């Protein structure tokens, strides 16, 4: 299989941190170790031949029953070379943390808060990691697969 330049460069540069790469339906995907996410994304943004300057999307997926359970998914876009890449970083349930990439793309601010809000993944180094779509006092993380669809939340109200 012919590798795209992005995946090739990633593989050359970070062969120790790349777990797997594939291109399903033309979507370049690299699965990387979560410890190296900062280094890899910084490289992707700054490398002259890649220049992934847009962080389009950041989300997480809960593969319940698989180990590691979560995957944090980054979608990057390079304006100059008109290319997209998907970076996935598996996050185990026991150590549900990953480095925040807010220092690389400020856009990650709210996306990380959302992933924290809905999946309970802690982004280390995020300056303001609190719930964004749900309210303070919401119990549990609703997009986890073990969160029942019809679960009721306790009533909250003003403290006094």
């Amino acid at each position, binding site marked *: 299989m012919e590798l795209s330049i992005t995946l090739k460069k990633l593989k050359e540069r970070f062969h120790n941190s790349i777990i797997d790469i594939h291109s*399903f*339906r033309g*979507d370049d*995907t690299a699965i990387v170790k979560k410890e190296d996410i900062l280094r890899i994304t910084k490289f992707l943004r700054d490398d002259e031949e890649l220049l992934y*300057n*847009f*962080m*389009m*999307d950041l*989300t997480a*997926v809960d593969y319940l029953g698989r180990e590691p359970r979560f995957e944090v*998914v980054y*979608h990057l876009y390079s*304006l100059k070379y*008109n290319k*997209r890449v*998907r970076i996935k970083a598996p996050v185990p349930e026991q150590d549900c943390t990953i480095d925040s990439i807010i220092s690389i*793309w*400020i*856009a990650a*601010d*709210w*996306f990380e808060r*959302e992933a924290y809000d*809905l999946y309970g993944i802690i982004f280390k180094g995020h300056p303001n990691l609190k*719930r*964004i*779509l*749900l*309210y303070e006092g919401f119990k549990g993380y*609703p*997009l986890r697969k073990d*969160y029942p*669809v019809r679960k009721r939340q306790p009533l909250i109200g003003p403290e006094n």
Partner: protein
Amino acid sequence: MSYGLFLMSRVCNFMSDITKELHTEHMVINMGPSHPVTHGTVKFVVTLDGETIVNFEVEIGYLHRGFEKMCESGLWEQAFPYTDRLNYVSSMINNVGYALAVEKLIGIDTPERCKYIRVIVSELSRLSDHFTNVAASGLELGAFTAFLYFVEARDLIWDLLESICGARLTSNYVRIGGLKNDLPEGFKGHTARVFKRCRELWIDVDKLLTKNRIFLDRVRDVGIMSPDDAIAYGFTGPCLRASGVPYDVRKAQPYLVYDRMDFEIPIGEKGDNFDRYLVRMEEINQSMRIVEQALDNIPDGPINVDMPEYRWQSKDDIYTKIESVIFHFKTVVEGIKPPEGEVYFAVEGGNGELGFYLVSNGSGKPYKCRVRPPCFPLTAAMPKMVTGSLIADVVPTFDMINMIGGECDR
């Protein structure tokens, strides 16, 4: 002379004493969610020093209804009504985006006629989105008449959409591998009449706003985003283009038949609210051009793929052929079953890149159905755009990022 100077210095000293001793404090006010400018969908916690904004926090989530969770608990095709309610002003684009993402996941290509119709409905939705946005920008600055002119135009566009799919707002028109139905009889003539009126209204609004000194003063040099900032904040769509970055998914990665259409993407210079307004006004014209071209070149033929495992066949077939009945039964009960895998597909929504990230585990239900809402990063940049300016500047800035609660909060 020297006495005068002495007196002056005394007065100055006295004045500086006053400013030193004057006790001032910041005022924190909650703007929204039930505030006229926030449309009931967002709350700003604003710290004011007089009228100047010192600190600005955005709280969203008032319209959160668990889009992803709902999609995960339904079949693949059952997500369409939910996508309608993302950006409810341009619901057809959401339909098209989701359908294209699922089709990419399956790996099917729709017939030509279907692609043209999808382009037409996408652009009509974009028109309705931009009409609403520009209209609201007038309304929120007090120009109520401009608002109603464009609301009339939007209503005419909605009449067109209604003639296509029977609904004005929540269309639920596109299907995986096809469309619900073909264009109605006489659609081209209807569109021509509507566009004629829309152009008249466009000229009226242009006269009312574009060279209006008060409007210019209100929107110019307010909410400036430099190109680098805009990219770093993840801006897309008209707001990014207003900052001077020529990125439009329709041009960068053409989907459907956009590569065959002759249209231009307007670019702003400064990235202030006035540029955003101008970009939207010009995109209205371009969208009308695209629709006209698509209607001129639309070929005849089927609108659905001939793959009974993904798209229902016509009722005639279902009633007469046993295979069709079986497939129909299976797709209705179990849903279509895309192969295992994951895709990301982006279309140009009304506010920018509307991306769908789908994960399939081979079953009839989406394992994950994530939507990348274009106005989410735009809203996140609000503090950056308004801090340090006056509270009145929140109005045009918030309007021009066109935050749609249904899309931002999902």
